[in-house]
Each structure stands twice: as structure tokens, then as C-alpha cells.
């Protein structure tokens, strides 16, 4: 059976203007991703990997080109729509975890569900299940400043799965972690592989080896697929 295309990117460009200097982060990217695909993106520093992930996730806007995610052309919508889009379709695991410093681990996990206005009972129950999934039950009421790097990464994964989004974007999930914690994260990624579209920015050979497709970016272009 032919799988549905969930991401269609064409002629995508992103140019930054920093103090008069023009920096071309992405320079004409074309890509199609089908439902349930597990894609990894690698490339040298500054090649535009994170920018590409941000554009697909609706965090940033392109300079030109088209990004269609689950049938929505992200270039055409306003910030309010994009907020709802991110909340509903996308689970994002940031490179620097990005947990909200004033919330505990469980509250951080519950946050996207609060934004989606789920009922309180459901939020509490699902937050507990996700904590169990990532093995942080005993860290539920700890603040981000009280967690280790691996725990922060696992909490970030749990939060990304909170609204059960169909698309998971993961930025360098094992880059800052030790071998043991890295393996745990890879375990989580493997478990997600079956029912979600996943795009991971990584250089980790262990993750690259489980991917359906690997893209290599250099100077804002896909040089290898």
C-alpha cells in the first residue's frame, strides 16, 4: 500500500540577516517524508540541520519555498495557528532539552496537555504513564535544575510525547549524554519508530543504523540521501 506523504518541502530557503551580513542557512531544500518514516539528518556544524527542524516544526518561518506538513502549508498561517499546530501535531525534543525552569518534571510533561485543554484527570494519568515510560517516576516533583543531563533528556522525550503527536522532531538526542544514558534514549526512539514519523538530527552511528533514511546536509543543501 502506498504510504501517505506527511511532509512535503520544496525550494526551501532560510536567510538570516545579522548586522547587515547575510547568512544562508538553507539554500533550496526539497524533501518528501512519508507517514511512519524514521529519518536522520547529519552534517557538519552550521550546515542548517536545526534550522531545517525548526522550520518543519513551525517554530520559524522560511525566507522562501514551501513547507507542507500534514496537509497544512506552514508558510500561509499566522502565529496563532502555528501555536495550535505545534501543540497538536509536533513533539519536539530540543538539543538543550528546554524544560521550563519553574515547573517540576511532571508539570513540564503536563504542559502541552494543559495547552491542548485536556481534562485534569486525563492529564495527571497520562503524565504519570509517560514518567514511567522514561523511568523518571521518582523524579516527578523535582525541578529541572535538580536533574542530570540524561534525566533532562528523558523528561524532554516524555513531554514531546504528551499530546501523542504524529510527528516527532529530535535534535541531537545523545550528543551530551554518556554511553549508558545514550542507550536508554535510543531504546525510547526504537519504541517510537513503529507508529510515528520521526526526524532526528544526529551524528550517533547507533541511531543512524536504525533509520529508514539518512540525509546529509552541507552548506544549507541536502548533499546525500
Amino acid at each position, binding site marked *: 500500500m502506498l504510504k501517505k506523504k506527511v511532509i512535503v518541502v520544496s525550494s526551501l530557503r532560510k536567510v538570516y540577516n545579522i548586522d547587515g551580513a547575510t547568512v544562508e542557512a538553507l539554500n533550496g531544500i526539497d524533501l518528501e517524508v512519508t507517514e511512519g518514516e524514521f529519518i536522520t539528518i547529519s552534517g557538519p556544524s552550521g550546515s542548517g540541520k536545526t534550522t531545517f527542524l*525548526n522550520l518543519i*516544526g513551525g*517554530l*520559524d518561518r522560511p525566507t522562501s519555498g514551501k513547507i507542507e506538513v500534514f496537509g497544512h502549508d506552514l508558510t500561509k498561517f499566522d*502565529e*496563532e495557528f502555528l*501555536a*495550535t499546530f*505545534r*501543540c*497538536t501535531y509536533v513533539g*519536539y525534543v*530540543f538539543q*538543550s532539552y*528546554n*524544560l*521550563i*525552569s*519553574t*515547573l517540576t518534571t511532571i508539570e513540564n510533561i503536563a*504542559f*502541552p496537555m*494543559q*495547552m*491542548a485543554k485536556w481534562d*485534569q484527570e486525563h492529564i495527571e494519568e497520562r503524565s504519570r504513564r509517560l514518567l514511567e515510560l522514561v523511568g523518571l517516576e521518582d523524579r516527578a516533583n523535582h*525541578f529541572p*535544575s*535538580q536533574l542530570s543531563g540524561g534525566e533532562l533528556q528523558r523528561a524532554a522525550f516524555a*513531554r514531546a510525547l504528551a*499530546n501523542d503527536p504524529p510527528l516527532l522532531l529530535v535534535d541531537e538526542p545523545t550528543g551530551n549524554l554518556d554511553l549508558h544514558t545514550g542507550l536508554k534514549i535510543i531504546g525510547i526512539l526504537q519504541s517510537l519508530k513503529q507508529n510515528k514519523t520521526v526526524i532526528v538530527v544526529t551524528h550517533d552511528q547507533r541511531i543512524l543504523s536504525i533509520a529508514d533514511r539518512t540525509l546529509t546536509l552541507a552548506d544549507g543543501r541536502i548533499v546525500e540521501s
Partner: protein
Amino acid sequence: MSQFVGSFPLKDLKRRKFQTALTITSLVVCVSVTIFLILFADNLGVEVLSVTEGKLTFGFSEVFSRFILLIVLFNFAAGIMVAYFLMSLTTSQRMQDIGIMKAIGCLAEDIHNFFAIEILIIVSLGCLLGAAFGIFLNYASIYLMNFFGYKISTNPVNPWTIMLSFFSFFLVFYVLGMRRIAKMARIETVKALSPLFVWKTMPKSNLKLPRPFYEMFLAKLVIRNMGRRRSFTVQTLSCLAVILALLTLTVAGGITANETTQSYVERAVGKNTMLVAYPEMAEHFQGLLNRFIEPNTVKEIEYLDERYVIHDSAVSMIVGIEGIVKVDPRIMIKETVHSNIYIRPNPDRPGEYIVIGTYKTSEALIFGVKAESLINDWLLLGKKLGEADSGSVLIGDSLAMNLFDDPWLQSLGFLNSTFNVAGICLDPFNNGMVVYMPYDQLSSLIGNEDYNILLVQVDPTTERMSSIRHEVEEAALSLGLVVVPLDEVQTRHKSFLSSLWSLLLSLSFLCFTNAVISLVGYFMLSIAGQQRDLGIMRALGANHRTILGYILLESFLIICTGALFGLPIGIVIVFWFFIPDAVISEAATLSIGVILSSFIGVLCLSSLYPARRILKMPITKATAKP
């Protein structure tokens, strides 16, 4: 390193334009309001703490003086708090820079000098611009008052007043700023680089709230955030409490004082009152009454001249008109009066005496009045003038202030007689330089049994006001007398007071500016500290409304807590200390409530400015901050 210290502070201030401008504006507001109040009071004839002759009676001047003094004190305190808070805010945001400077080997002395230059620039600019703006405000206000028909002469600006105010502020701000910098320069490098120390945040907030309130998600976030930035939250609350107290003092104090002083005038002149006298005397009387609002020279007349005599027959004619409540016949003369020294034995040292007061003389108008027909209902200290009070007089407040150290012990002398002071009245006539005494006594002293002034009061409940006035005019005309309705003069007095208070009330906008500055400063800090968290929230699907709601809630809680302390302090000062016997209408109470609520509402909304700034920032940039 010296070049670094020399050129960098200016560049650094330029780069932090908004915060630098905010701190300087706050200093300017504080210095300018104080200087304006001192200069303006001097021009009005009301000095802070003392009174000069000119316009307004002593009693009225005292109300203005107290008001101005309170505002100056509160403004000084509020200005210092806001300026110190903004300086703390500015320097706290530089904590990481200090850590980096130290980490790369910069000496504490250089860091100290670097920031000392910055403080010097900010304080000098703030105080200089403040002094200039204060002088400008003074001239502008006087111009405005004169434009609307009041004659306020401009006294030359006393350079010493300006210098004293300038250097007091400069010194206080500089010392406070340097204290903060000295503290910062001593911080350990590791601490300065720690984000926890930079924002003075605690890993956890110890604030415990009732369960139902805690269930509210946004409220939980807000309370935690306020608790974690405890040091700045407390500083902001203190600033807001003082500023809101000042705002209440200005608004409630100004409106109440306006109504109260207007009622003093109304009571002193008398409502629905007409003056009946010969034309020249009537004009003279009005001139003396108008001395309250403008310094004028009234043409001298011979009070006991035959031409001004009003006989008993005229009084009887007017008394007979229906609707007339009171006819107050008077004799008015001008005399030199003097205070007598009071000497009494010292109870502690037998054989020695205590001397109270000095011998002082002054020109005053003396009225011989009949106690039973007196129209005036002055605000009185002491007792009213009774029929049996021969040997006692009532004196105006300015005369009491000018002649006596203790009017209750000393006595007043004129026409070779001595009188005890029975009471002191707040009287705008001749600017409070008046004496009221029993008619019979004055009549026998000067050997004159006629009147030269008639004050006629019409029943305030009557619907025939104009026809009664017409009848009085006809009766007066038949005798060659003229009728002057004093309500019109009274209206001018009241509108003069009203414009003075309105002008002083406009100061509330300057106080309000200070409140806005401190609140925006707090939110700049608070939001800058939460920039990453707010960015993450947006990345996770929080829309603009949620973020704005979050910030509005924080500002609402901060302002309400500040108001909880500030408003009662202001109200207590106004009604217990400033005007204990306040006269205030329901409409005025309502307008105080509306004005204060609007200020608080606008204050809440002012927090949206930094919120909108953060919402304009791309999410990727907001979350990039370490």
C-alpha cells in the same frame, strides 16, 4: 585597561538604550517634581514649611504647604526607591558580564571604575535634566495660571534652592548606586557566572497557596516565578506601595483639599449673600475680598467719612423685605494693631518671669459686628464672638500668624484698648488681616453710631432669589446704595482654589509615570529572566493570548499586593493627618475611586509593553538564551 574603563561605559549605556532611558527618566521625574513644587509654592506665597505674605491666608497656605510637603517627602522616597531599584536591575543583568570580566582577569578595581562611570553619567544626566525640567514646569504652570486670568507674579529662581535640591538628589543617588556596585565588584567569579545568582532566584519557591488557587495553572506559574525572584518582587512591591501611597495622597488629598478649602471660603463669605454699600465703599470692599486671589493695591478711603454712612432706616427697609434671612450691619475701619507681650511668673524658679511673644504691629481692618446677626460661619479655632464678649475679639488667621507667638495668652491692642483673642477664623477678607469685635464697643471707641457696610443674606430655600435681589436693589437704589452679590466673588475664589488644586493634582501624572517606570522595569527584568521559559511555552503550543494572560496575571498580582499596602497608607495620611476635618461630597469620593482604579488599570496594561516585545521575538531566538 584605562582605555577600557574610559570608553566602554558610554558605549555600554548606548547599547542598553531602553534601560538607560528608563533609569534617567525616573531620576528626572523625581528631581523635577521636587524642584517644581518648591519653586511653584514660593511663587504662590506658600513655601514649604513657612508662609510668606501675598496671596492666600495663612490657614489656606498651611493646607497647601502640608500637601506640598507631604508630596515632596513621598516623591523623594519614591524616586530614591525607584531609581535604586532600576540601578539594581541594570547592574543585576550585568552580573554575568562581571563574572566573565573577572574570569578573563579583569581587576575588581577596573570593574568598579567601569560601573562607577556609568552611574556618574546616569545620575548627572538625570539630576541635570530633572532640575531643568522642574524650572520649566514652574514657569509653564505660572504662565498657564496667568493665561486663565490669575495674577501670579514670578519670583526669580533662587539658585541656592536649585543647587541644594540638585546636590541632595545627586548625592543620594550616587551613594546608593555606588553601594550596589561595590557589592557587585566583590562577588566571586563562580557566583557571578551562575544563572541562579544573576537573577537572585531560588531553586524552589516556598510560597504555599490554598489548594483551589494552586489548581489554576497560570496562577501557579506566576506565583512560583514571583517567589523565585523574591528579591526583585519585594523591591517592586515596596516601590509600588510607596508610589501608590503617593498617588492616593495626590489624588484623594488634592480632591478632598479642594472641596474642603472651597467650603472654608463659602462658609467665611456666606452663601446667598449680598453686599449693600455706597459705590466707592462697595468697590473697596470687593478689592479687599479679592486680595485672597491676587495681590492688589486698594485705593485708600476714609472709612468714617459721612459719604459712606448707612443709617438705621436703610437697615429697617431691607429687613422688611420678605425672604431676607439676616441683615448684618457693620462698621469697618482700618487701624494699626499690635500684639502685647505676656509675662508670667516662672513656676519653677520663684522670682523669675517667663516672657511670651514680642511687640509687633500691623495694619488690619477692624469690623464692629453684631454677634446675633453675623452672617459668617468661619472655620474657627477658639470660640465665637458673643454679645457679652466685650473685651474680646476674633482675629483672622494671617493676623494671628503675623503678630502672635501664643494668641491665647497674649492680647491685641488698638485704639488705646486691649483685647483678648477669643478665636481665630479662616477668612479670605483682606487676606486674613482682620479683627472682628462687638459693634457697640467699637462704636463707643470711635464715637460713631452708624454703619458703612451691610451684608444681606437671602433664604437659600427660596425660589424667588432674583426677585428678592431685585427688591433689595430697588430699596438700595432709592438711598443711593449699590448691591453686589458676593456669590460671584465667591465663585472666583473657589475657581482660583480649584485651579491651584487641579495644577497640583496634575502632579499625580508625574507620580504615575514613576509607577509605570518601576513596573515596566520590573517586567523587563522578570520577562528577560523568563525569556527562555516563555519561548519554550510558545514552542510547546502556548499562544499569544496565554502568554499575555500569564504576564497580565503577574502584573495584576504585583499591583494588587502593592495597592493593598499603598492605598490604605495614602488614605490614612489624607484623612488622619492632612485634612482631619475633611469635607467631601459623594461625587468627589466616586471620582477618587474612578481615578485610582483607572491608574491601577493602566498600570496593569503597562506590563503588556515588555510582554509584546518578547512576543515579537522569534521562538528560536527566545529559546536560544542559555
